[in-house]
């Protein structure tokens, strides 16, 4: 563990407010936050949280930095992001391992998350030459009309523990290419990954004679988070977290007419139709439901299966679950690590209690694994008689609910019955069923897949969902537009002053 921290320039006690290589902000009133390894329950290192004073220093620096950063041509801003990607390649292994140490996902998933950071930096570099606006034909002669995209300003990025580095990168690489400066409040459960990344950003900013482009303000939601969402200097808040908190963020930011990108809860289902390849479906469901210990926004939480194949599929999934090794996420033979906190274990157990009360039958798992540690649980399958109240809720844990349907209309109705709308999938070999699923009659989600699980899109696609998932889009496609403001411009190159809509005014 010590060598991982050393490779990432982390100390026993680290500062949690920073804007550049010589701009670490400390305050005697800073409270320490201890980062805990969820696999062992042991402390990894400490971070001094941002206070009201150091938050102000960070925000002032980011706001001032924006004034000059926006004047740097976008393709040159892209070069800074390119260098960030190159630096991340250099530390992929220790950073991925720190993700595993700090939040408990297995090592290959930690490394994959860092790869996602690298990929989005590559994407943002290309994007920096493609911040296109449209040109339109004006109805007035001698006029030219077009639109252009300008940077927004300093923005706030608030991320969750489950993807402690990738979500920051989705937002920050794109925002930086767009000309914004970024203040990041990571989860209090994963402060060290944020400090490690800030060290990398500091080196890149220093190489380019910059500061204040990438900033951190690590602290409690009730302190730093509330300050950010109510701060009129932050023109955009990109928030990843629960629907409940997203509602609070949206209300505060909209009250000051700021912008939001909200990536909130998911309650993702896989429909398995009667003609599906069941072996493929079972393997995919396993990864979707058990990967990251069920703590992904896109985790598979519901299986809606045709009654004719229900028993066969159930047995295949149970068999696959029984082969899952739970344990130290750094161990390469382990497929599922711990939950992030003891509170998350309590949350899972309470949800299971409710599922049982609502008629659920636990087919596999359902218990804590105290011999492995306080935060380890069994991956769990629950057969539900119907889609009860608890199934409508997102429980951030490896609980998979199984339900049956008789026809595809019923399956889609069940699918869309929940308030969340992030990711969806169907397994079928019938082209008509697949196309119907992807049509406007299908799932009301931001992501819909055929013959694969409820995974998020690759970084090239826009990530996000509908309904209580918040409607925001991050990462690829044209998600960059969320980080800029659109301006419509008209230039009169004639000697006349015609008005639109044929209006004659005055003479």
């Amino acid at each position, binding site marked *: 563990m010590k060598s991982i921290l050393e490779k990432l320039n982390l100390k026993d006690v680290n500062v949690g407010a920073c804007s550049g290589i010589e701009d670490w902000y400390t305050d005697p009133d800073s409270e320490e936050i201890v980062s805990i390894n969820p696999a062992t329950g042991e402390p990894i290192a400490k971070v001094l949280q941002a206070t009201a004073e150091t938050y102000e220093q960070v925000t002032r620096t980011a706001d001032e930095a924006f004034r000059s950063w926006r004047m740097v041509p976008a393709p040159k801003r892209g070069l800074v992001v390119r260098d960030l990607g190159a630096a991340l390649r250099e530390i992929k292994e220790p950073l991925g391992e720190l993700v595993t140490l700090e939040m408990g996902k297995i090592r290959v998933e930690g490394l994959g998350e860092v790869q996602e950071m690298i990929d989005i930096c590559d994407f943002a570099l290309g994007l920096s030459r493609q911040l296109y606006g449209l040109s339109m034909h004006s109805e007035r002669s001698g006029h030219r009309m077009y639109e252009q995209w300008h940077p927004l300003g300093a923005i706030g990025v608030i991320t969750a523990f489950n993807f402690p580095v990738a979500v920051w990168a989705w937002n920050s690489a794109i925002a930086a290419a767009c000309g914004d400066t970024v203040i990041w409040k990571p989860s209090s459960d994963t402060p060290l990954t944020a400090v490690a990344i800030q060290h990398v950003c500091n080196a890149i900013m220093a190489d380019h004679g910059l500061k204040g482009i990438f900033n951190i303000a690590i602290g*409690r939601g*009730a302190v730093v988070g509330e300050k950010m969402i109510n701060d009129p200097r932050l023109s955009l808040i990109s928030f990843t977290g629960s629907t409940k*908190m997203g509602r609070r963020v949206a209300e505060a930011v909209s009250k000051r007419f700021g912008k939001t990108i909200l990536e909130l809860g998911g309650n993702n289902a896989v429909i398995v139709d009667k003609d599906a390849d069941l072996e493929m479906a079972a393997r995919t469901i396993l990864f979707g439901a058990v990967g990251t210990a069920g*703590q992904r926004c896109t985790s598979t939480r519901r299986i809606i299966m045709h009654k004719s194949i229900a028993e066969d599929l159930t047995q295949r999934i149970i068999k696959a679950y029984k082969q899952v090794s739970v344990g130290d996420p750094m161990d390469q033979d382990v497929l599922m690590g711990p*939950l992030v*906190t003891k*509170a998350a274990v309590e949350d899972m157990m*309470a949800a299971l209690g*409710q599922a049982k009360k609502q008629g659920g039958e636990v087919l596999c798992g359902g218990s804590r694994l105290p011999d492995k540690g306080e935060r380890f649980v069994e991956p769990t399958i629950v057969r539900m008689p119907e889609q009860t109240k608890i199934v409508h809720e997102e429980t*951030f844990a490896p609980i998979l609910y199984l339900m049956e349907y008789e026809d595809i209309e019923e399956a889609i109705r069940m699918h869309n019955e929940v308030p969340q709308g992030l990711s969806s999938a169907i397994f079928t070999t019938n082209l008509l069923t697949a196309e119907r699923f992807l049509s406007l009659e299908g799932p009301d989600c931001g992501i819909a897949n055929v013959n694969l699980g409820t995974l998020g899109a690759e970084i090239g696609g826009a990530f996000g969902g509908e309904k209580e998932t918040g409607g925001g889009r991050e990462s690829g496609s044209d998600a960059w537009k969320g980080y800029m403001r659109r301006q419509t411009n008209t230039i009169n190159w004639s000697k006349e002053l015609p008005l639109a809509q044929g209006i004659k005014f005055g003479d």
Partner: protein
Amino acid sequence: MDEPVDLDTQIEDLVSDFPESVGFLIKNGVRCIRCGEPIWGSIGELLEEEGIADARGLIRELNAFLIQKK
């Protein structure tokens, strides 16, 4: 013995210091962690938002539960 929790206790502190509170509160209709993260703000604010009529009474019961667990 001092009561461990009052209406002003921050939920971020509650779930880290007394994780067993999570299950107790869910049984009483209040979820204080979502998506694995604590809700921002105090437990008093959350109980008010959730429309818990006797918030003080629930906190008394929570304290009794926590003391008994200890």
